[in-house]
């Protein structure tokens, strides 16, 4: 039963990821992304990584996509009428590359998934709060602190860019 739920969540994620890319209305794009992140959270949860699942929803659906919506509403973007540059060759190459990457992912997934569908049972508890917290503050402490530094720099930069013309 759990495997079926997993497959359903995965299918939903893929479908809505497609919708997010293809749809013409900016609002539909964002909403499809919301559903996609939700389905991804379900996938994480079924893999035993409930912390990741919760954080996925809190950070992406709860904060970042709300900002997206904010911008869309502020600029009042209704529809994007023309997509892309209209060059057929570029579109062809892009599609081929995407298909290649997709095929690669499928092959890798096929190699990784044991035949008895043991994705779910083989999942470790690596995604729950405690191991993640321990790993962040011991093994990966430097990377963790470095990322916070990077984020602070990004915030300062954003403030500077936003305030530049006010000076």
């Amino acid at each position, binding site marked *: 039963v759990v495997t079926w739920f997993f497959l359903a969540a995965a299918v939903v994620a893929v479908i809505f990821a497609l919708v997010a890319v293809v749809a013409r209305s900016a*609002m539909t794009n964002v*909403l499809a992304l*919301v559903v996609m992140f939700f389905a991804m*959270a379900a996938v994480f949860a079924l893999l035993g990584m*409930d*912390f990741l*699942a*919760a*954080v996925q*929803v*809190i950070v992406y*659906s*709860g*904060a970042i996509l*709300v*900002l997206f*919506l*904010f911008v*869309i*509403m*502020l600029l*009042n973007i209704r529809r994007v009428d023309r997509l892309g540059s209209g060059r057929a060759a570029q579109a062809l190459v892009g599609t081929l590359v995407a298909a290649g990457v997709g095929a690669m992912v499928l092959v890798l997934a096929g190699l990784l998934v044991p035949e008895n569908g043991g994705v779910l049972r083989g999942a470790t508890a690596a995604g*729950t*709060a405690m191991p993640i917290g321990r790993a962040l503050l011991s093994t990966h402490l430097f990377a963790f602190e470095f990322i916070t530094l990077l984020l602070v720099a990004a915030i300062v930069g954003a403030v500077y860019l936003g305030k530049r013309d006010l000076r």
Partner: protein
Amino acid sequence: VWAEVAVIGIKLAFGLAVLLTTVPIMVWVERRGSALIQDRLGPNRVGPFGLLQPVVDVVKLIAKEHILPARADRWLFLLAPLFAVAIALSTFIAVPIGADSGLELFGHPIDGWIVAPDLNIGLLYIFAIASLGVYPLVLAGWSSANKYALYGGIRASAQAISYELAMTLAAVGVLMAAGSLHLQQVVVAQGGTWLAYLPHWNVVTQPIGALVFVVAVFAETNRVPFDLAEAEAELVAGYHTEYSSLSFAAFYMSEYIHMTVASALITLLYFGGWNLPWVDVPLTGWPGAILSLSVFAFKVAFFLWFFVWVRWTVPRFRFDQLMALGWKVMMPLAVVNFLWVGAALALGYL
């Protein structure tokens, strides 16, 4: 397996029934309470003390025509109120409403009064779902094709992001003190006394965090003084200007459900959950379960009244004041609380 399904089903039905009956009761309390505070009578014609007024209100709302604005985005306009109720209701499944008193039903442990099988991430799940609570408002505002509604939606999104940070940071203090994300254990950690006399509730040990959390929760539930997304005086009715009939009722309902969940969270995180102050009663068996449920219900009822009380006492903020408060006061205070809890834990005060 069937016993487990049955137990979860019963718990789900119980939680749903409690939540959905709270809504009409709170509508009545709000109307009579506002009348009390403003020295009026309030609705007193239908039933004793006007108790049947909510029922009549619902009949009126059902009987009204559902209007779909001509230029509205049809799908989103219809989906937004459904999302509002669904999101509000689904928060509750991770909220424990009574002590785990070791009871069994059909040979399956009830496992505490929490609908979901004990999640590893209890509080995070609630925050995750609650953070989605802003979508219905934004979608309703956007899809109405009405500039006042749009303003309401924009305000709702900006406000939700600003106050979510302070709320989460404040709650981190509680999690540090309890050392767990399980809400059951958060409550258990608040048993007993602190410094010999005070109850060991988080509101006593980290008052700043409690203050920040309560204020941020008011902002997240869009209640006065933070109902800028609605702001009748400026935006007609904000994000739900164009809604009528049952879809309006859905927004109305979701507001009260959010209030109930928010009160439950305040109680669980800061006011000791089902712990009685100074008294240490073993909460086992049916008496224990009933005692813990009633203590919890009493505290939640108090905070629901507190919501009403504040609404009819405090005037609404201006939007720039709201933003300034969120970022320049609440965030630093939440960080101060965070530092205090960290230091107190390290020095062994907590």
